[in-house]
């Protein structure tokens, strides 16, 4: 499902931040196209 895919990552500061998701995605064999970490305050 993830291996070989190109991921657009939208993380959340108060949830799972973008870079943390990216570590998971890269470890699963996918490529990262874009990372952001959103926050409300």
């Amino acid at each position, binding site marked *: 499902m993830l291996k070989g895919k190109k991921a*657009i990552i939208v993380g959340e500061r108060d949830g799972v931040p973008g870079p943390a998701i990216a570590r998971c995605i890269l470890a699963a064999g*996918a490529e990262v196209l*874009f990372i952001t970490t959103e926050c409300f305050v």
Partner: protein
Amino acid sequence: MESQAQIKRLVDEHGKDDVIVVLGASDIEGAEIAAETLTVGDPSFAGPLAGVSLGLPIYHILEPEVKAEVPADVYDESAGIVSMIVDTDEVSRKFKAIRENVTSE
């Protein structure tokens, strides 16, 4: 809004083949709105994705099927704490429904 513009630009450049979206919001209702924005378009009609249906497969990092593809040590360090406070089964149900809705269009 800037993220919407950047994502739209990326999809225009790379196409949709093999592109997926992975979210990390701890609030599931907020994640659903983000998912809707990146699949059928911005529901508030405020951003660049207003009326733009990207139809991208969208996942949440806390879904068990996503977790299953990540080495356990990496996952635990990156998302483990949040996965303990969010109902991951509910996340899985909601995001499966969103993906099914996108593929049926």
